[in-house]
């Protein structure tokens, strides 16, 4: 099987676009939480889990993670996920609910109540809608998607590599949430099949060529 990769220029362009996409989500989240929330994506990577399972991201971290995921698409299809370490997820939920920041160490995965999962569902809904919707607009196709499912997952050391492995390519967007008192890091993953990935790469190349003309 031929392994698809992204050049540095392609990654840079994607990063630029993704930061615009996520900016809209940040505005919506800020309005929702009644406080300024800044979102940025400092790094975009295309990861083939079968080839590259050695990265040290949230994805390959072990322990409790909160994962929101939704399937999307028709011609451009895949699965979108927003993944946080559970302690960070609680910080984000508290910030959105106006609960004062108690420090990361105060939080325990067991502290996440059902209502917290609802808040995470809404946060994921806003972010993933924004990113996936804008990706589909970029490619010029319409995608269908639903409300994400949120779950608390314990990823053991042995499972680090197999988590999400059934998806071949993952566009990994390392995401920073800057809240008034805390800083939360998460990862947005757009898992794509080869066909959808090629659609995206073709579009990126088309944009790059138009710059060069």
């Amino acid at each position, binding site marked *: 099987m031929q392994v698809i990769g992204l050049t540095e220029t392609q990654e840079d362009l994607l990063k630029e676009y993704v930061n615009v996409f996520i900016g809209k989500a940040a505005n919506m989240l800020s*309005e*929702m*939480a009644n406080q300024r929330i800044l979102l940025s994506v400092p790094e975009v990577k295309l990861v083939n889990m079968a080839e590259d399972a050695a990265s040290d991201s949230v994805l390959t971290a072990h322990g409790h993670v909160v994962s929101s995921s939704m399937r999307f698409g028709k011609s451009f299809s895949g699965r979108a996920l927003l993944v946080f370490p559970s302690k960070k997820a609680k910080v984000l939920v508290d910030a*959105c*609910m106006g609960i004062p920041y108690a420090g990361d160490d105060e939080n325990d995965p067991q502290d996440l*109540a*059902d*209502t*917290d999962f*609802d*808040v995470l*569902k*809404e946060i994921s*809904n*806003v972010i993933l*809608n924004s990113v996936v*919707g804008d990706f589909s607009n970029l490619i010029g196709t*319409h995608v*269908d*998607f*639903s*409300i*994400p499912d949120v779950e608390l997952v314990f990823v053991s050391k042995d499972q680090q590599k197999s988590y999400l492995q059934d998806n071949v390519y993952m566009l990994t967007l390392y995401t920073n949430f800057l809240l008034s008192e805390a800083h939360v890091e998460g990862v947005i993953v757009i898992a794509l099949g080869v066909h959808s990935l090629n659609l995206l790469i073709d579009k990126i190349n088309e944009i790059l060529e138009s710059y060069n003309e």
Partner: protein
Amino acid sequence: MNDFFYEVLDKLNIGIVLLDEQLNVRYWNAWMINKTDITISKALGASIGELSHRLGEPKYKGLLQGVLSSGNSRFLSGAIHGDFFKVRGHNYTDKCLQNVQLERVVHDNESMLLVQVFDMTDQYGRVQHMKEFIKRLTQENDEIRQDEERARRLAYNDQLTGLPNRLFFENNVRSRLEEMLSKGVSTEHFAIGFIDLDNLKGINDQYGHRTGDFLLKEMALRLKRSLKKGDLVARLSGDEFAVLIENRDGTEDIKVTLEKLVNYFDEKVIVDKFVLDLTYSIGISCFPDNGSDLETLLDKADKALYHVKKNGKAGYAFYDENYS
């Protein structure tokens, strides 16, 4: 849509509302009627803003229109937004929470907005009660631990000087002895020092008990400062103190500590304008040379102490067979 589907929607245990593109109600299911007390005749054709205090706000109207135009579903959590529809008979001193899910549906080329309403009030209430219960348990547990710690401190500490008391000292020395004897280690040594503050009775008689207490506290400080990590000092009673000095480099190590203690004799103590001497007498016994149980070691240290006192006080002596 046919009546059968409306009947099905009426059976659901969630609120279902259908809105047209102008955000007017096209369907309002039985759950909504029961919860809100808004009849179907009043709901049908009404603007959603007239029926929902929340969804009538410009921010939410924009959101509803966004879902209609983009087709991107939205989820709104009650934990953040509170309630969307006023519930009949709800006591509003308690929070009322509803999750709402917004989705675009298309029927005969007409886009409509499906609003699903989930009442989370009971669940939220249960979670809140559980959180409060856990918080209360945690507080009680903390209080119990603090009480235990306080009781432990009281049981093992001398109130005046803050030093460990006789009970703590004896338990500690016994456990060290047991450990050393069980290992059969003959190379490890330590010294037990019996210490008396010289002339406490005279000071109490002449200057009062407050001055005597001050001297005892000062003596405790000097003892603590002279000892190394691993050594132990305790106030046994009245003017009696005891030390355990670990022997790291032969008996010389013990002598270094004793010299430190004695060197303090040059430092006078000022209490209420009186300049007083603070001296003490120290009797030393060594494990294992002078004994291998606490009673013997204390007894021999006491004999050495007696020897110092008999010979002018303000000094130290190691136990000698001749003192018996």
